């Protein structure tokens, strides 16, 4: 995180960040393709079949990394939001809004794969498990952010309002998480838990890590190309944009 931070400060002006992002996108795309390829191979052919859950468990190699990423991206957005509010840099707000759709997508994938996993394991698509519920609320927070930014025309206002909303959400997330957990333990209806616990072999853990890193690289690649579009859109009247090769063509 730290080395990236220094880079961002140097490149915090959209004009100098735009070409840099352009160079970074293919790199991260390549990393993402390779890692996800290796990860998928490992999850299908290397990781052993679980003696209790059979083959169906393999979906956790998508589910768990997606869930990690969904939370991690929200924190990264909060980081950009705070940076933008404190230093009033334009790029921070663009970064936050370019990450939001990817974060929402991972949240959705986590929920969806969770349902696919839940059906054979628990016999139901959805249980009001503490983690699932928290994840659902996280999806609401993402959607709220996207909706708020969509409703505001002025880009400066939408950046700052969005940043405030994310920060309020970040303060709230631990409270939401613990309240949901407590609520869940009180209602001991379905006594299932998503935790794998100690039964996880190290090969499974490695596969998950590789998948998570692959997702992470994917998120960076997508967010960067999205931020490039946002930069072009917002800076379309400036001279440096009109001098770009791809714009002149």
């Amino acid at each position, binding site marked *: 995180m730290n080395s990236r931070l220094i880079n961002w400060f140097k490149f915090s002006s959209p004009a100098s960040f735009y070409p840099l992002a352009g160079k970074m996108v293919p790199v991260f795309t390549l990393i993402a393709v390779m890692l996800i390829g290796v990860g998928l191979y490992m999850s299908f052919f290397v990781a052993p079949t679980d003696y209790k859950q059979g083959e169906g468990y393999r979906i956790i190699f998508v589910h768990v990394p997606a869930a990690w990423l969904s939370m991690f991206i929200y924190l990264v957005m909060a980081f950009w939001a705070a940076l933008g509010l404190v230093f009033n840099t334009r790029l921070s707000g663009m970064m936050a809004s370019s990450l939001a759709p990817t974060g929402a997508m991972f949240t959705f994938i986590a929920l969806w794969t969770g349902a696919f996993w839940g059906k054979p394991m628990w016999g139901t698509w959805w249980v009001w498990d503490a983690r699932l519920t928290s994840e659902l609320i996280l999806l609401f927070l993402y959607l709220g952010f996207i909706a708020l930014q969509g*409703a505001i025309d002025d880009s400066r206002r939408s950046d700052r309002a969005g940043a405030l909303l994310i920060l309020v959400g970040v303060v709230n997330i631990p409270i*939401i998480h613990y309240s949901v957990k407590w609520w869940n333990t009180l209602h001991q209806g379905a006594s299932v838990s998503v935790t794998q616990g100690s039964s996880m072999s190290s090969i499974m853990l490695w596969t998950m890590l590789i998948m998570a890193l692959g997702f992470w690289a994917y998120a960076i690649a997508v967010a960067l190309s999205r931020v490039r579009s946002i930069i072009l859109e917002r800076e379309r009247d400036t001279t440096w944009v009109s001098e770009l090769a791809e714009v002149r063509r």
Partner: protein
Amino acid sequence: MFEAYLAILKRDLILAVRRRSDVFTTLFFFVIVVSLFPLGIGPELKTLRLIAPGVVWVAALLASMLALERLFAVDYADGTLEQMLLAPQPLSVLVLGKVTAHWLITGLPLVLMAPLLGLQYDLSIEALKVLLISLLLGTPALSLIGAIGAALTLGLRGGGVLVSLLVLPLCIPVLIFGAGAVEASVSGLGEVGHLYMLGAIVLLALLLAPLATSAALRVSAE
């Protein structure tokens, strides 16, 4: 500083008294929503008793959303919000004054009406008492958190729907502990823990929400 708080509080209360319909719409909405549930679910008292805490709390949550949109919109339209932003007072104090008035106008009537509605659901006296306390603690938090959303969506198209979208997820802890307190009391688990948590949430909201709201107002009023 305290004079400014009182001035805003008094002003908004006078305005509410002169325009009473706003107060009654919220209350009426609350009463109707709570009364609709038995019609949808059936009149069996055992079921009703089970769902009563949740129904009353969700209805209170929705009713408080209803009034939020107008919290700053009117001041924004007539220019008094600009004066508040430029007043030599900490904006969060003025915001707190407005939120206090808002709670007194829209929150407190719900709290007082709730036990009456609880009777429709055959709640015991003990449970009604807990319901009253939990709403008394929880509705200020709803107003405080809601103010952030109202400030963020100020002057936007479709702000009313948007504000619910933003605020409702943030209010989930209040709902969980509020309704949970009543349920815990009904099932004999003891409601004290929930009420403490509710109190903690209110304190936290009291501390942070006015700051976030004033920051949001400055952004929105540009």
